[in-house]
């Protein structure tokens, strides 16, 4: 039997709180009521479980305990006031018996569409998703995005107020609305993963991004782009362990020890990519996953099928014509047609504030033997990647996701 300590309960919290919060929001129609009650239930678990042992179904215990707590509070507070004042528009059409704790339709699906509603800012969408579905504390969310905790707290309070005041619904969008509404959801999960590629709580955020993408892929098996996102994250993560040298410096793809890539993740990612190809409903995440699958399939940088990668980037650029995609396509072009052709494209891009732009340019200049220019470009990249680079990088990612959202 596992030792029931704070660490184990913390892990259970991370796994289960999203589902409990989502269920309680459906029952009570109020985010704050749900959040507070679930917090209280876990506080109780921290006292009880080490003494009594784990209940057979910890998640169910939390949800039931939280529901009972919330009912107690509301009864005490109500004193004649009507409970119906707390009303988020909830679609109960698929509930057999409202108020019952049970998995009718997974409430987390409703919750993620509310958190990622396009009427909320991208920053608020990410913050709410990590807080409510990921079970991160406000402090953890703030640290992930390098903002002060009070700033993040204010952002979350504002977003929750808007959900209530404007009656943002707690509902999975209809088939017709789905493509438009899914886009910000996928962007938020992608941002969550990316926020974990730098910053102090990196591992947690990357795992959280993958965990939420997996949940979404299970809940929406008909959406090819959701599967594509999960595959993209798995294939990217498969290389994580060998991305950095002992001194913390970045190891480029060409220098990585491919034997150390995580084969389990690669196999899962590749299987999803193959299924997506059969389905033949391509989208930006699936194509990026396919690009990563080509890398994962190659024994070395030299034996990589770069023309295949270039063809995929052509397809991606047609769907998502952003500067960063054009830059990455140019990197593939350099392997197929040489650095000169790639540099011509790179020099036309307007990505001056992006350190990887300068690093890419520097590499091409170096390969062309234009070493003085290369050194200048490397210096520019290093300056940008210095003190405040993570912040700038994250902000840029936010903007990119935003532009992809508004595309």
């Amino acid at each position, binding site marked *: 039997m596992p030792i029931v300590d704070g660490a184990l309960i913390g892990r259970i919290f991370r796994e289960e709180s999203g589902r409990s919060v989502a269920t309680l929001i459906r029952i009570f129609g109020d985010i704050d009521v749900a959040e507070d009650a679930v917090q209280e239930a876990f506080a109780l678990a921290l006292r009880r479980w080490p003494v009594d042992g784990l209940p057979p179904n910890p998640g169910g215990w939390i949800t039931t305990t939280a529901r009972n707590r919330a009912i107690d509070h509301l009864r005490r507070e109500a004193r004649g006031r009507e409970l119906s*004042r*707390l*009303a988020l*528009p909830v679609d109960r059409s698929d509930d057999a018996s409202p108020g019952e704790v049970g998995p009718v339709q997974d409430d987390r699906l409703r919750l993620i569409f509310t958190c990622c*509603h396009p*009427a909320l800012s991208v920053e608020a969408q990410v913050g709410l998703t990590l807080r409510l579905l990921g079970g991160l504390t406000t402090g953890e969310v703030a640290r992930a995005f390098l903002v002060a905790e009070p700033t993040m707290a204010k952002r979350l309070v504002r977003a929750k*107020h808007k959900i*209530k*005041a*404007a*009656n*943002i*619904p707690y*509902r999975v*969008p209809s088939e017709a*609305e789905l493509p438009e509404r899914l886009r910000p959801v996928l962007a938020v999960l992608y941002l969550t993963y990316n926020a974990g590629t730098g910053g102090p709580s990196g591992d947690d955020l990357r795992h959280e991004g993958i965990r939420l993408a997996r949940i979404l892929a299970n809940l929406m098996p008909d959406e090819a782009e959701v599967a594509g996102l999960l595959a993209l994250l798995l294939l990217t993560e498969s290389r994580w362990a060998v991305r950095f040298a002992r001194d913390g410096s970045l190891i480029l793809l060409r220098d990585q020890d491919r034997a150390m890539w995580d084969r389990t993740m690669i196999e899962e990612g590749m299987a999803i990519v193959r299924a997506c190809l059969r389905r033949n409903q391509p989208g930006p995440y699936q194509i990026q996953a396919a690009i990563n699958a080509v890398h994962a399939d190659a024994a070395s940088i030299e034996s990589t099928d770069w023309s295949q990668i270039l063809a995929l980037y052509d397809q991606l650029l047609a769907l998502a014509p952003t500067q960063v995609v054009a830059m990455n396509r140019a990197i593939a072009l350099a392997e197929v047609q040489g650095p000169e052709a790639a540099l011509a494209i790179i020099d036309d891009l307007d990505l001056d504030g992006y350190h990887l732009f300068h690093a890419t340019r520097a590499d091409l200049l170096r390969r062309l033997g234009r070493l003085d220019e290369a050194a200048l470009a490397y210096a520019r990249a290093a300056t940008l990647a210095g003190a405040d680079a993570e912040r700038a990088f994250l902000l840029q990612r936010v903007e990119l996701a935003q532009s992809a959202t508004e595309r």
Partner: protein
Amino acid sequence: MPRYLLSAHTVDGQAREPMTDEQMQHSWAEIQALEAEMKSAGAWVFSGRLHDADTATVVRESGGEILTTDGPFVEAREHLGGFYIIETADLDAALGWAAKVTRTISAPIEVWPFADTAGG
């Protein structure tokens, strides 16, 4: 049921190409049709188009006295040009009407929830 204000803003000095009579009639007919659609869906509460901002007057209290001055209150380039008040189940339904309005009048629409009906 929650109520929303859909407000349409006009920008000073950005008068569009004057419309021909025919275009004007067509545009008017479209607006009428949309309003009829809102009414038959039970969403329409009230709507109106406003005169230019330089026809507005500001009334305020200052030191116990009422001061009346030539308006508008906020000296801005953008002013409220017209609005709808609608009643819908939730924000998504309101955003759906806003999409139809912006297509009809080719101006951005701001969607504001009313404070007294939504519990906020």
